[in-house]
């Protein structure tokens, strides 16, 4: 059976050009960049070039990019790194209720260390309000961390305005841009961003590599002790193939971005309009227009997400859900609940995230099988027609 991948927010396939580029660094060019001999010099050069490409994608300088093992590590480094380095200035951090667990659980950890955390609410579309940020600021506030685009519903936050406010108030501003980097235009200077998280595997580089952008002059405490790698910000032998790969992925993302956005927005808008038109008792979750180009999230009332996913999987379609039952946790998605959805409606959510390689034929196939599956599950549901 041909399989269709509609779960690009979970992870993405590695771009074939990225695989081709990194291969050399999995074979001949295997030196440790810290070595002075030729094997080391050639990988040092490759790491430097990749750093420049990653910087270029987001309008940063190369020495503002620090390579890490992924989005979670970058989030931890940004939050704890700023918190520990600025303890004397204040102990208050502002974030939102819809952040990824890499932010929320790090905030809980910091709360245990004596930091005060404000979790801002969102509106029904999953949007943070700039006024709420302004009102939350105290003279103890050292950091604001608001995600660029939400991983579940795709809502894009008013980053530039929050960044402007933060800069006026001389508060560091971090954005977890794991879902946006490579898929949406970002310029850290114009967007007033001090720190930014990215993960390679979310934009067609492999898993195991990420980066943190930290504006020149932003002082962070390093979390991992050892050698002097990454200008003392992140000890450990550099993941050269991964770094080369994220560099190449950044280059490709920049090159293809406009075309990709147009393509994915077309698919997205077709999917949204057709599903809402053909399947009753269905709602779109997330913002109607301020949303990631390839991201769709529906709730089909009266049914549960995991059984929907299993049925799609049997038809060869990979998607995801905010249902608690898919994650083994007890509560459904904290994002959907924060947007005011009831538990039932949150349980019935379906996330379709499109990206590299997805075609209109694939969307048409989904549109063909989805109504039947929803109807069948509804016919089994004690909530439907009751």
């Amino acid at each position, binding site marked *: 059976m041909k399989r269709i991948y509609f779960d690009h927010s979970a992870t993405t396939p590695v771009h074939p050009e990225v695989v081709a580029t990194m291969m050399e660094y999995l074979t001949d060019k295997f030196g440790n960049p810290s070595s002075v001999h030729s094997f080391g010099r050639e990988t040092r050069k490759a790491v430097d070039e990749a750093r420049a490409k990653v910087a270029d994608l987001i309008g940063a300088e190369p020495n503002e990019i620090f390579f890490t093992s992924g989005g979670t590590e970058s989030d931890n480094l940004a939050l704890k790194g700023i918190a520990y380095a600025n303890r004397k200035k204040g102990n208050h951090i502002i974030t939102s209720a819809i952040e990824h667990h890499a932010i929320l659980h790090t905030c809980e950890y910091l709360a245990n260390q004596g930091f005060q955390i404000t979790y801002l609410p969102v509106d029904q579309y999953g949007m943070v309000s700039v006024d709420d940020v302004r009102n939350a600021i105290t003279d103890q506030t050292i950091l604001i961390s608001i995600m660029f685009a939400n991983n579940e519903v795709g809502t894009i936050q008013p980053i530039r305005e929050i960044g402007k406010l933060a800069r006026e108030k001389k508060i560091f501003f971090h954005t977890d841009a794991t879902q946006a980097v490579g898929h949406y235009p970002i310029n850290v200077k114009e967007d007033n961003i001090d720190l930014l998280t990215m993960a390679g595997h979310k934009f067609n580089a492999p898993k195991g590599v990420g980066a943190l952008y930290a504006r020149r002059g932003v002082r962070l405490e390093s979390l991992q002790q050892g050698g002097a790698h990454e200008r003392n910000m992140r000890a450990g032998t550099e993941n050269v193939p991964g770094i080369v790969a994220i560099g190449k992925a950044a280059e490709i993302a920049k090159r293809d971005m406009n075309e990709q956005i147009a393509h994915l927005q077309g698919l997205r808008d077709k999917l949204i309009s057709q599903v809402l038109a053909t399947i009753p008792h269905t709602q779109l979750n997330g913002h109607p227009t301020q949303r990631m180009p390839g991201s769709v999230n529906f709730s089909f009332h*009266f*049914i*549960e*997400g*995991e*059984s929907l996913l*299993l049925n799609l999987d*049997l038809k060869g379609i990979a998607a995801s859900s905010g*249902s*608690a*039952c*898919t994650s*083994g946790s*007890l*509560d*459904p998605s904290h994002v959907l609940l924060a947007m005011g959805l*009831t*538990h*039932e409606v949150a*349980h019935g959510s379906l996330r379709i995230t499109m990206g590299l390689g997805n075609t209109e034929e694939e969307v048409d196939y989904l549109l063909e099988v989805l109504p039947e599956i929803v109807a069948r599950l509804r*016919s*089994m*549901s*004690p*909530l439907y027609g009751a």
Partner: protein
Amino acid sequence: MYTDKVMDHFTNPRNVGEIKQADGVGEVGNAKCGDIMRIYLQVENNIITDVKFKTFGCGAAIATSSMVTEMVKGKTIEEALEISNQAVAEALDGLPPAKMHCSNLAADALHEAIRDYHEKHK
């Protein structure tokens, strides 16, 4: 993740539906945790002659509901009361550990339906 038996009952659930004038109806679970199961019984001479279910829930929830209806049909009320959630899970060749608690409620729904039958036929 799921056994072949679970997938079989999930894809071809047995006895889905309602019984209009049921002798007993039982419902357990709540939408908060993502599982609601309702079981309808028809009883003649202390024997369960027909049984139907409706379930809102994950693959495990649907499969356990389907399985319990198969296990109970033709049994006496006393025999039906013997069926445990554990027995349902075993009949499906097991469930993933994370699913053992929240989705494995089908026997509870059955017992609720029997309780309702007793109430109505006191």
